[in-house]
């Protein structure tokens, strides 16, 4: 089915991904599409519960899909046999939020770093040792850490080790799920610097998941905004931060840069509870909190629109799922 996409330049392509929990009662992700080119970084932003982590886990085939396709280098991840899947997982690696929970407390750093190499049968004993020493150097640790255990390290060092473990298989894509969220600012800055150097020196693509727009701004080439399981806006980073289109994106940006304004329209915010499956949504999910709400927003689900800007070709496409952009031609104002 994916022959037409065989030559696609995208490293990862996700099309119309939907998934749910509790026998399809709890909608987690709904018709989400995006792609990541080799060597580029997509920043996936959204509030907690917006489906960010579910998307990440689906890409690794750790969750079952309701519908949709996930293509890695043109191959459908969910149609791979065991061998192909194993080969793919070597090329995609995950880094989680809490490094102390993602490293085994009973394994020395050496065992932790050697495990992926053994599992994927990469190299022989001698070259493996060389490889893990080189990786440790890349993440800024000395090889004398090898015999030590995770509890002997600070959280920043633990996250470096988790990144080293992800890099040891030479992945093309690293999925970082809130990888710097639990770190102190000074340590966060050190880890972000490391990720930046990996982007530049090794050409690794990242799916960088975070709820922090300021962090995303520092390292993402493209931005995708999720809200309650749906993708509301996608744009190149420079465009997104200059001209955010969706009211939700604007709200998030105003929260991130000015902080809460008690009396402003955007400051009035209602917490939404989890979504239960009530068939196809017939409204815009953001309508309840939207400062620019129109009558149509509570009657019809908006389509995705492409917004035209000047120099469009140089920047890449800007998609937004909102009724404000319902006119067929929307020119950059």
């Amino acid at each position, binding site marked *: 089915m994916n022959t037409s996409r065989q030559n696609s330049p995208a490293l990862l392509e996700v099309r119309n991904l939907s998934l749910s929990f509790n026998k399809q009662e709890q909608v987690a992700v709904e018709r989400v599409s995006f792609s990541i080119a080799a060597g580029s970084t997509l920043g996936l932003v959204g509030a907690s519960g917006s489906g960010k982590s579910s998307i990440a886990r689906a890409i690794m085939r750790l969750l079952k899909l309701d519908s949709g396709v996930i293509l890695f280098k043109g191959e459908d991840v969910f149609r791979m046999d065991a061998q192909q899947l194993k080969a793919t997982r070597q090329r995609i690696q995950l880094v989680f939020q809490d490094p102390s929970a993602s490293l085994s407390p009973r394994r020395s750093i050496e065992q932790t770093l050697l495990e992926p190499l053994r599992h994927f049968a990469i190299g022989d004993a001698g070259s493996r040792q060389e490889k893990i020493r080189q990786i440790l150097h890349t993440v800024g640790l000395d090889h004398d850490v090898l015999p030590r255990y995770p509890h002997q390290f600070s959280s920043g060092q633990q996250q470096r080790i988790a990144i080293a473990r992800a890099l040891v298989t030479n992945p093309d894509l690293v999925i970082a799920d809130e990888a710097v969220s639990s770190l102190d600012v000074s340590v966060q800055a050190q880890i972000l610097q490391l990720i930046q150097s990996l982007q530049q020196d090794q050409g690794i693509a990242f799916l960088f998941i975070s709820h922090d727009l300021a962090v995303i701004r520092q390292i993402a080439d493209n931005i995708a905004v999720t809200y309650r399981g749906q993708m509301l806006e996608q744009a190149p980073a420079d465009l997104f931060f200059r001209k955010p289109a969706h009211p939700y994106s604007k709200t998030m*940006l105003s929260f991130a840069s000015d902080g809460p304004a008690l009396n402003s329209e955007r400051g009035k915010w209602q917490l939404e509870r989890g979504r239960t499956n009530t068939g196809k949504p017939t409204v815009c999910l953001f309508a309840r909190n939207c400062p620019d709400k129109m009558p149509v927003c509570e009657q019809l689900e908006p389509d995705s629109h492409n917004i035209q800007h000047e120099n469009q070709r140089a920047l890449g496409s800007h998609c937004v799922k909102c009724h404000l952009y319902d006119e067929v031609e929307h020119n950059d104002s």
Partner: protein
Amino acid sequence: MSTPALKVNDLSVWLESKAGRKQLVDSISFSIKPAEATGLVGESGCGKTMTALAILGLLPAGVKVESTSIEINGKDISSLSVVQRRAVLGRDIAMIFQQPGTALDPVFTLGQQISSVYRRHTGGSKAHIRQTMLDSLEAVGFSQPEEIAAAYPHQLSGGMRQLSMIAMATVCKPAVIIADEPTTALDGSTRALILQQLEQLQTQHGTAILLVSHDLAVVRQSCARVMVMYCGRLLESTDSQSLFSHARHPYSAGLLACIPQIGSDRPPVISAIPGQVPAATNLPPGCHFAPRCTRVEQQCRQSVPDFDSVDGRGVACFRPL
């Protein structure tokens, strides 16, 4: 000058172990005025939470604490017995914890938990207690307080739990609230909501707030004053405006430089503080920050700089910026 809502004099916290004395908090003093929010910032392990717990008398067993006094509205609470303290906690001073998921009791509804605080300290008829509980839930922004009151903690999202915690902490209208990383696990919009509620407490009830956080952006948004802590010591204490425009301690300046900025151009990542926080058992002599400091000189490695305070601005540094 009015009596400060919270006044801490010479508070020290430490652990004795075979490995030696672990100094967690090193004789810090500060005060907070009514209706004022003060931020206490620093990296993990710098003693922020220990300071908060020491004020409340909630330190784990085995941790040693010493202070000249800890006063709430001029009344010393540092020497109270456990029973006497119980009457103070929740009524005069309350705490909002970092993890509402673990701080709330999973087997009671939110309504039961919030009511029990009010019943214990104030009491009254059943209907009055229930109404007060619902009012406190409504005050933190729940449009349907009955629904929340009937819910168990696991039925609510993290943000809703944290708002319920605030309702519980404020049901008796305490003079002081200590909020320990109240927004750390929350996303931007929910964080904004929580901070709004804390601001409302100050303006409407004159509550003094000690906001413990590692997030300088949060402190900037919501606190009039900031204290910067490192390895158990206060390095700088000032009004937030001066800190963010002109930090005097090199550590404060380094922390500020690390905050990512949102702009229309992609900003470079700045990592202004090299190295790591030293272990509490192995603190360097002199200024604890000296080994990581760009302005270090001989004196910094040998003696501890005094905390010099002039016009409400204090800094502990031989070579301030």
